[in-house]
């Protein structure tokens, strides 16, 4: 078999020679030695499973030789492959040496054939895949997808301990009422929250947060400060609840808010 193959490669036709030369010119077009081997193997025009690795090795070595003559720079991996194929060729041609370690030439050749077949199979698979109908090219998704509204349902919980502590807090506060005397210029967040809850229903457009200060609290600086802080804290709370949106164009710019439509709480 080896003999006849040898003859074959000698009696290389003009067309084949041209093909081989065009391969050389195209060397950059190959994706590494395995790709080149696969391309060379096509000249054998046989099923990849029946490919002659010996023949292929010769073709490859001839290719590398030619590249050298043409002073083409071959990447290192092509040369490594050439060395390995030269080794494989000698293994295939020489009778097996029983003292020699490692896999036989046949085993190595079979694995190379497997690699070539697998690479070819993957290429075929890739083209079958790309030939499939594709989304957005052959078949299409809904053109006007509808928005899914995210509804946040909030459930509130409290423990018995919370309840008792809450009650205890109120009752002990009674005991210390004298200390809360200065509360008349304090606007609490709860008060602000209550006030805002009543007002935000009308806040369809962006409005300055300061317009939410309670009447009569805008002038006394102390009261104004407290009311502003409470109103601001209350709006944060409302924003957290998803009822309003807040914006501020830059540092120290007026803070504006407006109600949020879909905020179901």
């Amino acid at each position, binding site marked *: 078999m080896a003999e006849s193959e040898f003859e074959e490669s000698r009696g290389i036709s003009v067309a084949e020679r041209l093909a081989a030369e065009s391969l050389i010119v195209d060397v950059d077009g190959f994706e590494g030695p395995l790709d080149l081997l696969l391309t060379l193997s096509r000249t054998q025009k046989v099923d990849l499973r029946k490919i002659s690795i010996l023949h292929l090795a010769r073709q490859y070595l001839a290719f590398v030789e030619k590249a050298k003559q043409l002073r083409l720079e071959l990447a290192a991996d092509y040369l490594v492959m050439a060395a390995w194929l030269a080794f494989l060729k000698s293994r295939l041609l020489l009778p097996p040496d029983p003292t020699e370690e490692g896999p036989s030439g046949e085993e190595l050749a079979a694995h190379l054939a497997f690699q070539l077949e697998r690479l070819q199979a993957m290429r075929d698979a890739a083209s079958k895949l790309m030939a499939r109908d594709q989304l957005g090219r052959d078949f299409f998704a809904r053109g006007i997808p509808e928005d*899914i*509204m995210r*509804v946040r349902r909030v*459930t509130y919980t409290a423990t018995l301990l919370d309840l*008792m502590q809450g*009650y205890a807090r109120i009752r002990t506060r*009674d005991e*210390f009422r004298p200390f809360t005397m200065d509360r008349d210029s304090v606007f609490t967040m*709860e008060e602000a929250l*209550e006030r805002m809850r009543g007002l935000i229903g009308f806040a369809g457009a962006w409005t300055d947060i300061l317009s939410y200060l309670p009447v009569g609290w805008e002038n006394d600086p102390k009261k104004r400060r407290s009311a502003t802080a409470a109103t601001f804290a209350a709006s944060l709370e409302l924003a957290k609840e998803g009822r309003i949106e807040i914006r501020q164009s830059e540092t120290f710019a007026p803070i504006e808010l407006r109600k949020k439509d879909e905020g179901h709480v």
Partner: protein
Amino acid sequence: MSEGVDKKEESLFEAPPMGEQERMCEAILFASAEPVSVREMNARMPHGCDAAEALVHLRKRYEGRGVQVIKVGDAWAMRTAGDLGFLMQKETVETRKLSRAAIETLAIIAYHQPVTRAEIEEIRGVSVSRGTVDQLLEMEWIRFGRRRMTPGRPVTFVVTGEFLDHFGLESARDLPGLKELRAAGLLENRPPPGAMPMGGDAEDEAEDVEGQSELFED
């Protein structure tokens, strides 16, 4: 694509059957980003097609389905059926702690029921927001009790069975009194300052709040 060309060529001789035209309208309406006019549909479909007629069939086919074929001005579109709008939302449930105001209000109602809003405000020392009461009502932890037979006939609030369930109470009487709270370390054990209304047991201020006082008697 080449298929399309074939189809077009064919159609010079014969328009596709109506069922096929209906399929085409269906696909076009489904995939288009906006409503499509009959004219545009005819332009896209093979020569000889009658989109207007196909649409009539298509609309009928979707009658009563989850999706409807509708006319928008001069154009056509497909939309999900109006009654299924509730499916277009994703619900996420979030558990939050009840606000301090709500807890305090709830506690007062539980300890003093039936209690009017004015009484709650008096005990808390601050006004009770409408939102807080509404929230508790909505949670079904409180409900309206009988009206108080006093001027203005104010409504009263009482706690509900759901409330008892949630807190694992058999009745509101099971709520520990202040003495017990104090004993349990939930209240600071501090002698009440003389002049002040001392945070004694709930009974202290029960005078005008009939009904509730006996609740806390042992």
